[in-house]
């Protein structure tokens, strides 16, 4: 769908055309569902969230700035919704403080990362991702799935812009740990090598 087509369909949606809304939904539902699926560990939660996000989108469509990519705006709405859901449901235990000192700063051994790449199929990575603390998982998904900027990530997660890099790196470390014995241990051995 070209930009002009999208603008036309969005205008029809704003005018209350259900067919146009159906078109938008069919086009983007899969992406939003997959986003929710990555962020919310339970499939039922992801399904509920997808529906709720689209209801929210329908209400908020008037606030969409057409100078921005529509999908990016959708991801922004979705990330806010999912983050709210996570915050509401759980007392987050991953209380990040922003202290760089807390971060293990060893370089990952390149051979170790190669090993991880070869060893862990996408399915295992996604399973490990589901075990991460909410904020770490959210950060990785926002950056590497929704391709959000550091500013957007900071705004969504309520952290300082300068802290986003640390947050992402820490999330990567946690993911490596969650992937098993090849994770943290291999990082340190790789560094020594």
């Amino acid at each position, binding site marked *: 769908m070209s930009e002009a087509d999208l603008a036309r369909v969005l205008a029809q949606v704003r005018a209350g055309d259900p067919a146009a*809304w*159906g078109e938008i*939904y*069919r086009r983007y*539902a*899969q992406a939003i*569902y*997959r986003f929710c*699926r*990555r962020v919310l560990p339970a*499939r*039922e939660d992801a*399904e*509920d*969230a*997808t*529906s*709720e996000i*689209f*209801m929210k989108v*329908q209400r908020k469509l008037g606030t969409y700035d057409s100078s921005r990519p529509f999908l990016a705006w959708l991801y922004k709405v979705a990330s806010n919704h999912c983050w709210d859901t996570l915050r*509401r*449901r*759980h*007392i*987050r*235990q991953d*209380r990040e*403080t922003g202290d*760089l000192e807390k*971060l293990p*700063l*060893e*370089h*990952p*051994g*390149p051979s*170790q*990362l*190669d090993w*991880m*790449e070869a060893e862990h199929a*996408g*399915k295992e*990575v*996604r399973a490990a*991702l589901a075990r991460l603390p909410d904020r770490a998982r959210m950060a*990785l*998904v926002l950056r*590497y*799935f929704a391709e959000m900027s*550091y500013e957007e990530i900071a705004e969504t997660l309520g952290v300082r812009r300068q802290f*986003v*890099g*640390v947050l*992402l*790196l820490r999330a*990567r470390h946690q*993911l490596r740990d969650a992937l098993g014995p090849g994770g943290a241990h291999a990082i340190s051995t790789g560094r020594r090598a």
Partner: protein
Amino acid sequence: MSSANDHFDEVTGLLYLEGQLDAGHAREAGTHLASCETCSRLLHALGKESVWLREALVAQDEPVPARLAAPPERAATQWGWMAAFGLAAVGAYTLWTGYVQPGIAQAEQAGFTQRNLLTMLFFSGAFWKGWDAMRSSMEFLAAVTLGLVAIWLLRKQWRHFVAIAAVMAALALALALPAPAGAAEVKHGNPNYTLAAGQEIKTDLIVAATRTHIDGDVDGDLIVFSSSVTVNGHVKGDILGFAQELIVNGPVDGNLRTFSQSLAINRAVGKNVLSWAQQFDLDAKATVGGSVNLFAQNADFDGQVGGDLMAFAQVLDLNGSIGGNAQVRGQRLVIGSQAEIKGTTQYHGRQQPEVSPGAKLGSPIEVTMVRRGPNYTRFRYYLHRILAWGASFLFGLVLLLIAPALYSDVVARCNRPLPAIGLGILLLVGLPAVAFLACITIVGLGLGIASFLLYLVALYSTQVFVGSWLGEKLLGAGQGIGPAMARLALGLAVLRVLSMLPFVGPLADFVILLWGLGALALVFYKTMRAAASTSAATAAA
């Protein structure tokens, strides 16, 4: 990073890779990279990690569920739901007018001028002297309403239940502490306590002892926690007693309120008597100026009562005189030849009352025979079931709107019935015991009563959680408030039908009670544990 040996850290590497370094740092890093093989390898590895991370995340590993095939529709008010709301409101109104209001009216008729039992019991007692200004029920209700509104507004800030518990506990302590500290004399037995004859306590007296003898006079209220209590002296205020055995041989000018295994009244009580006792004995010499409210297994009633009698007693042997009306519920009522009831007499029981020909009754006794179990042939029975469904649906709806996260968590916990039922068995017995123990201490009295009331609310809410879980199994998980209401309505209806079945119904009710209670407790446990670990992590940091 001036030399090849000054490797940059991993954060810098990631920021460089993702184009997040400012121009100066980026230039510096680029220069370093050109001459440092270690850092180049690091950057290469991080880049590859980013690639496989992206690939893993964007992979289309599962299809979009069928239920998401069509766009969600905005919830619209439907006639069905409006009818359900109407029914629920009627149910709540009926419960109020059918059960709550008559109870209050009865209490008022029995001489309790305050609007409800709790107010009468505690807010006008020695603990609550500071509440005198708030005695009127309208003021009290206004305060409660404001409190609820405040909780509603602050609920997002109060994510930690521990914080709520702490605030409530502090509130209860603040209310309970000042009055006794400032206005009463507190005595701890060692192990026994005796107020000798001829001695007089000029204020309220609070006693905690194994055995208590009050032979002297108490100018104010007497509050006593003791295994055995004997009051021979004159108490000019009220007596509030928690005891195994309580004997009142001396005059009491105020009210007598007791929670005991046995209570014997042998002298005059100026105002009213409220008693929970296994054995209640009102001696022929005893008089009660006001009314008597009685919850007892066996009651021998030989004395004189100026006001009304309201009794829930398994066996009531009445041989005294009652100046007002008598309302009795129980299994057996015996009205002896010396008995006199000047007002009306109502009796609900399973056996016909035995009335001596010599008894003087102001009007013929109104007898309502209570049948065991439900009467399936009466329309009224089904109407009550429907209204009860409406009331529980309304309660569930309020719960759903006020605390959606708690609601969904508890319903999710119902997915594992066996652990929940196991925990429910423990809590069903354990919680009242803990609340009772809290009541034994003076400071914990407010907290204990609050806990007990919350416990009752929790028991009622169990049907809501299990019903909602059942509804989800029948209708599937849907998003939004509409499907949640549908699940709740259907689940509660199924449970209501289940509870109507002969033999199976009571058992099902009991299992649902345990199940829901256990699930609720699991959620609270999980929440508190998470809060505790968070606090520990913060403290460690």
